[in-house]
């Protein structure tokens, strides 16, 4: 028998008060707070069911408040944040990092791959005034968390569903489906197969509603790796599409570079020779005819250009 999942907020009914909700911010762009602020009518209902004790973007500020549920956006990037996340943990019963920064370090975690001190020194004449830890970390690298909601920004429906689930006394259901399944459910046409676009949908967990492919563009993995992500297999496919090794690795260097499977790819992956793979039989040379180029007027809008 596996151990039961950690107790959600079961006693919410027996609290004799509304559960307290805090929305904290670490190093981030505030986009995840905005995703919640933009919830419209749902936000008003949320405010009826929770006592919102801290939510800076909504103008409610009490950073030290005790909370039943604490949402945290942003990465742990400064010494002050490393201290503050400990305090938040101690004062929160259910801690839920939201967004790519809080769950994987976000775009600022790219500095983890470089010598951050040298970087800072090269940019600022007086680097001693910059308060930055050498790495930008996910919240879970510092404290125990109950559930992570990824995404850049986090998905508003996912946050609301998680909060509704907690109010019902249940552990929120962690989304596990890959973008591809969601993309197909929405009747969208595969950009990898029709455009050779280096789409990360096959290894990325959904939550965005397969947004980029819906606009004819390749997913760049901002929700991070799904369960059982065959990252190396997809990287190999990108290489077969004509991307050089550096360009392949760059596909995994956006908001989720800190995710473990992407880190592993960056460390270990090298393109394999093309022979022997089933995809090697794809006769791309002969099929790239002038008709192919002509057809761009009847295909989706063009090239991938997300960097």
């Amino acid at each position, binding site marked *: 028998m596996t151990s039961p999942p950690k107790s959600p907020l079961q006693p919410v009914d027996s609290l004799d008060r509304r559960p307290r909700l805090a929305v904290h911010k670490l190093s981030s762009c505030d986009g995840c707070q905005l995703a919640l602020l933009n919830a419209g009518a749902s936000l008003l209902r949320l405010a009826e069911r929770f006592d919102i004790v801290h939510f800076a973007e909504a103008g409610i500020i009490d950073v030290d408040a005790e909370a039943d549920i604490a949402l945290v956006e942003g990465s742990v990037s400064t010494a002050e944040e490393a201290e503050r996340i400990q305090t938040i943990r101690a004062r929160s019963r259910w801690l839920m990092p939201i967004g790519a920064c809080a769950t994987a370090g976000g775009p600022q975690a790219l500095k983890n791959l470089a010598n951050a001190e040298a970087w800072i020194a090269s940019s600022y004449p007086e680097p001693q005034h910059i308060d930055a830890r050498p790495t930008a970390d996910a919240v879970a690298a510092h404290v125990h968390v109950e559930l992570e909601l990824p995404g850049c920004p986090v998905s508003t429906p996912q946050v609301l*569903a998680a909060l509704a689930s907690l109010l019902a006394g249940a552990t929120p259901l962690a989304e596990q489906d890959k973008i591809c399944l969601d993309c197909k459910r929405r009747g969208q046409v*595969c950009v990898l197969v029709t455009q050779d676009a280096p789409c990360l949908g096959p290894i990325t967990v959904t939550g965005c509603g397969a947004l980029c492919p819906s606009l004819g563009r390749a997913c760049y993995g901002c929700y991070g790796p799904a369960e059982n992500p065959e990252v190396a297999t997809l990287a190999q496919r990108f290489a077969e599409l004509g991307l050089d090794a550096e360009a392949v690795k760059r596909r995994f260097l956006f908001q989720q570079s800190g995710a473990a499977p992407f880190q592993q790819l960056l460390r270990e992956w090298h393109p394999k020779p093309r022979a022997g793979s089933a995809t090697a039989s794809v006769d791309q040379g002969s099929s790239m005819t002038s008709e192919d180029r002509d057809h761009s007027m009847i295909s989706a809008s063009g090239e991938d250009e997300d960097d």
Partner: protein
Amino acid sequence: MIASRFLPRQHLQTLFDQLDALGYRCIGPQVRDGAIVYDRLGDLTALPIGIGAHQTPGRYRLEHQDHQRCFAWANGPQALKPLLFAPHETLWRTERDDAGRLAFTRELQPAQRQAVIGVRACDLAALALQDAHFADARADPSYSRRRHDLLLVGVECGQPADTCFCASTGEGPAISTGTDLTLTELDAGFLVRAGTEVGSALCDALPLRAPSDGELAQAEAEIEQARLSQHRSLPGRNLRESLFANLDHPRWDEVATRCLACGNCVAVCPTCFCSTEREQPSIDGSGSTRVRLWDSCFSAEHSYVHGRLLRPDTRTRYRQWLTHKLGGWHDQYGRSGCVGCGRCIAWCPVGIDLTAEANAICSDASESAQEAP
């Protein structure tokens, strides 16, 4: 065999007009986002006129061609499946009153007669399988309602893709059954034959003439050529014994190094039917909605039992898919779950070829399997 009549190309719009007059919403092939998709079709001009579809493993490209035909392509990523087995279906809603009492409601979508134009033999075979699955003794009400209101205009396939193997599975490229009306496209128009009384009535309203011997011969030659041009095949019609005897075949490990476990094959397969239920609670706590989504045996949740996954890795997930599709279906539906449409090959982002995998795993089966019906 029912005698064919001929519909000159310039009168194809009459068919649309007739269906419209009978209250059908027309669904048909059209170009969208670089593929042939089936969607609401206003009129004839939205059809993919002069368009071909070049398909290879993991690759799909539309091509402009120098002709006026509307159906000179094999297929697109989907056809009938999403129209009947909805990718997203509301099962019921729950309201909870202040005393904690629950009220459940199910809202079936209002009936809407739909006519699908341009259905292929492979998709008709898949439809028969979906019917066997969803319209069984405990019929799915939403599927059944949509199925009941469906009119089918088949078009025989004259331009199979490189990925097609319907001749091997026995479904096509000719259409033998399952339509209200079947068309065979020629340059000047269409051979037309009715499959049902509804189809006959439609024929009566169309400006049909007798086909020439040349037209009949040309149609037959094109379909035969479509059959002969297919070069992929499964090693037999019934691979059940062979697959289940090879559950430890090293090919499962090998294919797992190429497979993304993304589930695209399942999603585009016209016979795959797995679904998952999800709960959508309202934030005010008054109720929730139970929905059903397409699922895939490549997803984690599909094999979740009591806090563990029966199939934690790509190897066991791919094996589950193939042994069910080409094996277990024989027990459950009296035939293979593969209709030879080749979608799982074309729309696999890494171009895994089901026929190649089946041939590798069942290589010792090809002789006995040839004897199967």
